[in-house]
């Protein structure tokens, strides 16, 4: 083939030839790109999830403590024992309370950052949410252990301002008892809210930033008061952000097992139960079955959110 008459430059070396091959067969390049991550996630991650499901259908021999590798629903049946249902219920109630509180606390921050913060303030707000989101999880939990301890900062501040009765009152509420907030379920709740709050702020802020100012002006022109504008324009448009955030806060609370271990009355949550069952108890099948529970709860949650039309506006 006479190269000189062609507008295409002659291929020099294997790199050029490969380029030609990729050009002629774009799918080949795509395949080369996609195979390593697909293999990794497919084998390591999906494979592990399959192993989790498999384990949850095994059972443990009550006498020898050895895992019996044959299919049974016995392990799942154990989930329905009263004590285990208690754990699941307690976890779901906690997750719901945390999600609701996060949504309420996050709104002003997200709204201010989205609508009023400009220039440097905008960056400050952004970093102000980003840094706590990313900074060490364990360090943040530890910080609250210091704050909530009986001889710690909060007691000192309450004594100094004469508001100690508020903490006393909280600790005497049935179900929230403890010698201090760091051993009360309310402490657990507080730390959950603190740790997951940024996960609610960011999607909420993103949703609020998409609300066009012209819509607020139109609402005002049509005679709406601030309150009406808020309720009928801003809130519905912020909803997708709230739902997205709630998926994070809900799911993260469902699975966490560090916080209840460090702050609170060591009442068991799903995550903590999974951790203890696979560790000291050595009951991997039941641990696996327990780990499937948050997956199912999240699927129900997502279905309900979808039915409520939460994803329509996304």
């Amino acid at each position, binding site marked *: 083939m006479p190269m000189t008459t062609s507008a295409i430059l002659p291929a020099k070396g294997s790199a050029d030839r490969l380029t030609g091959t990729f050009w002629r067969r774009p799918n080949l390049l795509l395949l080369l790109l996609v195979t390593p991550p697909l293999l990794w996630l497919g084998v390591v991650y999906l494979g592990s999830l399959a192993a989790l499901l498999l384990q949850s259908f095994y059972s443990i021999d009550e006498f020898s403590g050895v895992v019996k590798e044959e299919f049974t629903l016995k392990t799942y049946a154990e989930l329905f024992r009263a004590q285990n249902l208690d754990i699941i219920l307690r976890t779901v109630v906690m997750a719901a309370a945390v999600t609701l509180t996060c949504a309420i606390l996050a709104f002003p921050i997200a709204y201010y950052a989205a609508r*009023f913060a400009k220039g440097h303030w905008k960056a400050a707000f952004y970093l102000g949410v980003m840094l706590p989101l990313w900074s060490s999880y364990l360090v943040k939990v530890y910080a609250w252990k210091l704050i909530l301890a009986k001889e710690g900062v909060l007691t000192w501040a309450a004594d100094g301002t004469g508001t100690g009765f508020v903490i006393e009152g909280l600790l005497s509420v049935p179900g929230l008892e403890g010698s201090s907030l760091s051993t009360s379920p309310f402490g657990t709740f507080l730390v959950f809210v603190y740790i997951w709050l940024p996960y609610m702020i960011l999607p909420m802020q993103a949703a609020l930033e998409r609300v066009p100012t012209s819509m607020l002006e139109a609402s005002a022109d049509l005679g709406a008061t601030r309150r009406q504008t808020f309720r009928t324009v801003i809130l519905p448009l912020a909803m997708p952000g709230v739902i997205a955030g709630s998926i994070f806060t809900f799911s993260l609370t469902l699975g966490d097992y560090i916080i209840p271990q460090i702050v609170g009355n060591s009442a068991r949550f799903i995550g903590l139960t999974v951790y203890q069952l*696979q560790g000291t108890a050595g009951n991997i099948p039941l641990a696996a079955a327990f780990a499937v529970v948050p997956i199912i709860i999240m699927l129900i949650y997502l279905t309900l959110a979808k039915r409520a039309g939460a994803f329509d506006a996304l």
Partner: protein
Amino acid sequence: MRSDARNDGPSLLLKITAIGGLLFLHLPILFIFLYAFTTEERTYQFPPPGLTTKWFAVAWNRPDIWPPLFLSIKVAAIATVMAMILGTLAAAAMSRARFFGRDQLSLLIILPIALPGVITGMSLRSAFGIMDIPFSTWTIVLGHATFCIVIVYNNAVARMRRLSGGIMEASADLGANSFQTFRYILMPNLGSALLAGGMLAFALSFDEVIVTTFTAGQQSTLPIWMLNELVRPRQRPVTNVVAIVVFAATFVPILIAYYLTRGGSETAGMGK
């Protein structure tokens, strides 16, 4: 009156709650620093009865801190490199074309951080159990790399979306082959986003404890060491010194990542 509703700045209540919320997010961390200097080593007494810097020396000389620190650095470094390779490849594939299974792949990439860590951890633990894989540094890396992929991926995919396809075609028209285009066009444009993704992945891995406890067996990373100290404390201020180290090891990379990607629509970290 009503026209006020349009744009008269934030109300006082909104200002207070917004700034109060931000303070709520930041103040607690300061106590970690304060308690590293307290002279009281058994309780969390506030205010500290006295201040000292001796705990930094004590921590430096504690032999049980160094191996977990080195293990954490090693795991985070390996996991970051793996995540950067896999995440970049996935982002490159996603930006190239719409193909069969594209949405499923993007779901698969996000899944490891969308599901609670305890599920990822327990899944890996189940798999190791079924296949009789003994715990090692590599079992930890396996878990970390899996959830770090999405961090790098998010950064890379956002940058590629912004990158116009035109400059790649221009490069080809000027006679560059794929490798030259990759080296001289793609890498300079993608570099800072990848570096930011790598920084965040390192921070995430260095600090990870939830998945790690399931994949580490008897080994101890720095966060696992910290967790043990929180449950069974001895010399509490030493834990604070280590907490400061962990905090710095995550804080600095995050700040760098932020400055690397600032100004774009893809500012780092939205995807955690």
